[in-house]
Structures are given as structure tokens and as C-alpha cells.
């Protein structure tokens, strides 16, 4: 705790919570209220993003009598702002690290009597809320460790961190691209990996730090889903015919995520037959569809269909591309599926967190169980 547990002075209170009076002094009664932007005081609750704060700290009255004794063993809480804007890592990297946003002063303090505390003001501990209450996406990257948002690693000792995913908070990993349709009768391209939504990289096994994630009603964290494989091609030499068709496979469907997994390219290089079609792009929550394989002008060969991408709620995940078939010269193999990102991942085993999901909140993907969350945050 950051105000003394024994003898306490006005200076101790001002150092922790800021000055509650306009004249540079301290009004103890003012701490029962919070300060508005225009400088006037207002009764609690204080609304910051999706958070409704009921008092300056636990045990400090918000009405009635207040004494210096009520201010002992108390600490400042502040909220890192992820509720006033929406962004994808694909477009900007400035916002992704909550520690950086804190150090840049993008916070609101409970009570609103002071500015953003610096590391040197930590004074025994602070309570930090990271309030995700807008839509955030990642960046298309085959590395599953890449996340859309992360806590930041170097928080001071005695940080009590709460990640609050509010009712409008939606955090996505990027979807994996579908594998490309093959060239000629070759092999279909492999689907790409999805990446991850939220990275916990604050060390909590030392320095008296903690991290709790609360996903509120309507809050949503989703991994980036993998792309489907591209289809293989086929080369046929039908008997008693001068037409020896080469047909290519279709592209795989993109995996669901944000940014969406794009569909794999159409097959190329068909001769005396058609190329496979491109896979379709996914949406944030719905997979892309694999493109159909090409068909020959003659004979019974077929280009392989691209596999569908993956999405929430579909067992089995993405589909591999189909191989080319029916060719008596060559049938290319279908491409493999990508791997799936995680909803929540940890930098390493020292980044322990707890996860609470309120009714109506959702966490889709690995990290649902904090003990088995995948390691590595980038």
C-alpha cells in the first residue's frame, strides 16, 4: 500500500492521489468526490471508459464523514486508455503496448486530482486498469507470437494490473492467408498461420506484481484463425486424344481474424483446361471459402479444390487443399493448413495471469486456460 499504515499527513495523501483543492492545499472532503474536466467536483461513480469507479479506493467514503484514518493503506488507481480509439497493428504500432501508452500519459486517474504517475511516483504500488473497449486487430504475419495488443514488460514492482475488456471491447488476432492454387500440375501452396490477440508480457512471479483479465458481458477476444491449403494440379494424357490437359488447383480460403485472412491466389499455368479459382477472403469472424479446382477440356482429371479457412465454432479447423486427381501423368498434392494463433499468450512462464469471463463475454482460442497459454509474445 502506498499511503502509510500508521501516521499519515496531508502531504502523504497529496503525493498519492493529487491535490484535491484549487489553492494548493488539501481538502479531505473533496476526496469523497472526483474532479470533472471543468474542475468542479462530482459524486461517484466516476465513469472512465467502460469502468464505473465507485470511490477513490476501497474503504474511502464517497459520502458522509471522512477522516485521515480512512486514507491509510490506500493507493492510486489509473486507467490506460484503450477506450477512446480503435486501431489495428496493421495500420499503426504506436498503440499496441500498454506500458508505452502509460508512459506517454494516455491515462485517466481515479479521482482525477493528478496527472499520470511516473515510475518514480510508484511509491509502493499502483492499481492499473487497461480498459479495452473498442475494436483492435493485429497485423498479418505468419508468426503466431505476434499479437494485436500487449501489456508491456517493464511495469514497476507492486503493480496490480487489471485488464478490463468492456462490453464494446473486441480484440482479434489476424487471420492466416489461404494457400495459393498451384502452378500447372504442381503442389498447392500451404495456408498461412493466424496470429494472436492479446499478449501478457508483464512478469508476475516476482516484484509483487499481478495481472487479472476480466472479460465483461459483450467483451470478445479471438485468436487469428488459420488459412486453408491451396489445391494441387493435374496433368492428364487421355488415350486416343491429342489433348493433354493441365489443370491447376484452387486457392485456399482465408482464416477469420482482423485483419482478415485473404484468400489464396487462383491457380496458374493451365493448358487445355482451366485454372482453379481463387479462395475468398474471410471476415473478422467468418472463414473464407476455398476456390474450386480447374477442369480439363477433355478427360476425367480435376484440379484440387482449395480448402476452406478456419473460423470460430467449426470443429476440425481449416481444410487442406485437395490433391489433383485423375491425371495419368502427374497429380500435385494439396497444400497444408496453417496453424492457429492464440486468444491470449504469455511471454514466458513468469507471466502468470488469471482470467474471469462474465456471462456474455467470450474468449475464443488458446489462452482460455491460463496454465496452458502458449508462450512467446511479439
Amino acid at each position, binding site marked *: 500500500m502506498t499511503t502509510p499504515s500508521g501516521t499519515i499527513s496531508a502531504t502523504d495523501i497529496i503525493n498519492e492521489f493529487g491535490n484535491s483543492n484549487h489553492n494548493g492545499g488539501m481538502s479531505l472532503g473533496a476526496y469523497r468526490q472526483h474532479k470533472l474536466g471543468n474542475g468542479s467536483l462530482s459524486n461517484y461513480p466516476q465513469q472512465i471508459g467502460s469502468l464505473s469507479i465507485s470511490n477513490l479506493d476501497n474503504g474511502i467514503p464517497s459520502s458522509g464523514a471522512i477522516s485521515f484514518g480512512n486514507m491509510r493503506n490506500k493507493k492510486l488507481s489509473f486507467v490506460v486508455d484503450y477506450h477512446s480509439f480503435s486501431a489495428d497493428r496493421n495500420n499503426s504500432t504506436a498503440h499496441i503496448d500498454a506500458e508505452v501508452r502509460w508512459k506517454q500519459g494516455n491515462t485517466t486517474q481515479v479521482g482525477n486530482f493528478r496527472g499520470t504517475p511516473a515510475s518514480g511516483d510508484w511509491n509502493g504500488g499502483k492499481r492499473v486498469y487497461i480498459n479495452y473497449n473498442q475494436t483492435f486487430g493485429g497485423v498479418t504475419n505468419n508468426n503466431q507470437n505476434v499479437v494485436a495488443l500487449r501489456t508491456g514488460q517493464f511495469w514497476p514492482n507492486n503493480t496490480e494490473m487489471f485488464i478490463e475488456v468492456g462490453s464494446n471491447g473486441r480484440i482479434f488476432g489476424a487471420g492466416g492467408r489461404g494457400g495459393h492454387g498451384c502452378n500447372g500440375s504442381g503442389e498447392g501452396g500451404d495456408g498461412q498461420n493466424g496470429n494472436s490477440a492479446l499478449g501478457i508480457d508483464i512478469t508476475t512471479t516476482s516484484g509483487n506484481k499481478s495481472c487479472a483479465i476480466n472479460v465483461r458481458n459483450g467483451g470478445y477476444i479471438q485468436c487469428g484463425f488459420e488459412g486453408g491449403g491451396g489445391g494441387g494440379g493435374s496433368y492428364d494424357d487421355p488415350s486416343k486424344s491429342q489433348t493433354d490437359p493441365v489443370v491447376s488447383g484452387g486457392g485456399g480460403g482465408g482464416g477469420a481474424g482482423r485483419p482478415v485472412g485473404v484468400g489464396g491466389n487462383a491457380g496458374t499455368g493451365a493448358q487445355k483446361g482451366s485454372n482453379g479459382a481463387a479462395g475468398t477472403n474471410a471476415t473478422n469472424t*467468418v472463414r*473464407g*471459402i476455398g476456390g474450386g479446382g480447374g477442369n480439363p477440356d477433355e478427360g476425367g482429371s480435376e484440379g484440387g479444390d482449395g480448402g476452406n479457412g478456419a473460423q470460430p465454432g467449426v470443429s476440425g479447423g481449416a481444410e487442406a487443399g485437395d490433391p489433383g486427381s485423375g491425371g495419368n501423368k502427374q497429380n500435385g498434392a494439396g497444400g497444408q493448413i496453417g496453424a492457429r494463433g492464440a486468444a491470449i499468450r504469455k511471454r514466458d512462464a513468469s507471466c502468470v495471469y488469471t482470467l474471469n469471463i462474465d456471462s456474455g463475454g467470450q474468449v475464443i482460442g488458446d489462452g482460455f486456460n491460463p496454465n496452458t497459454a502458449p508462450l512467446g509474445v511479439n
Partner: protein
Amino acid sequence: MKIIVKIIEYLEDTQQIVVKFCRKNAPKSIDEYPAGAIDVNRLETVYDSQCLVESIMKIGYPTIQKQESNETPLTENDDIATIEGTDLRDYVGKIFESDSRMMVDRVTRKMKKIIIDDDI
């Protein structure tokens, strides 16, 4: 085979539709099949409804084929017999299978003699 499609959602901001496909005589409701996304620029929207629907169906057809191949047959229908010979008395009461594509693409031709001529 008749195939059906249901447009679940039109995402105007990204110009995509979310659709579900299945066979008209599928064993479960189309709502129970997983959805997929299609970019509107892949569709034929210039002409008429038939062209539009067919352009959607063309994209969904491979998915429908996979649905069919992934359906689990009834246990009673999956006890496939293998019998040598053509004595019909051996076939009575047993179940046999063949790929329907064989009925369309190929015809078995009975031949008594094949002449192989290197000069062709």
C-alpha cells in the same frame, strides 16, 4: 442434385456476404452448416437474379461436395459386401456400392478382343 444457399449477412462496409450452402436434400437444416464469406466483387451482380445466384453457387459448390463426402453413412447402409462372380443368388440381401461419377463419366464396354497395333 439441387443445391441451396442462404445469405446470412451482407457486410456493406467490407462488401462481403456471409453465406451457407448445402444440398437441398441434406440431412440437416442449412442453418446448421458452417458459414463462409464471399467478396461481392466475385459475384455476378450486373445482370439478373439467376446470374447472381449461380455465381454464388459456383463458389460454394466445392464446399457442398465436401459436405456430402464427409457425411457419415447410416450403419445399416455401410455394411458393404464383396462378392466374386455373378451368381445373383449370392447377391440377394447384401449391399454393394459404386461411385456415382462412374455412371456419368464412363461406360464399361465389354470386349472380346483387343488389337494392339504399334503403327498407330
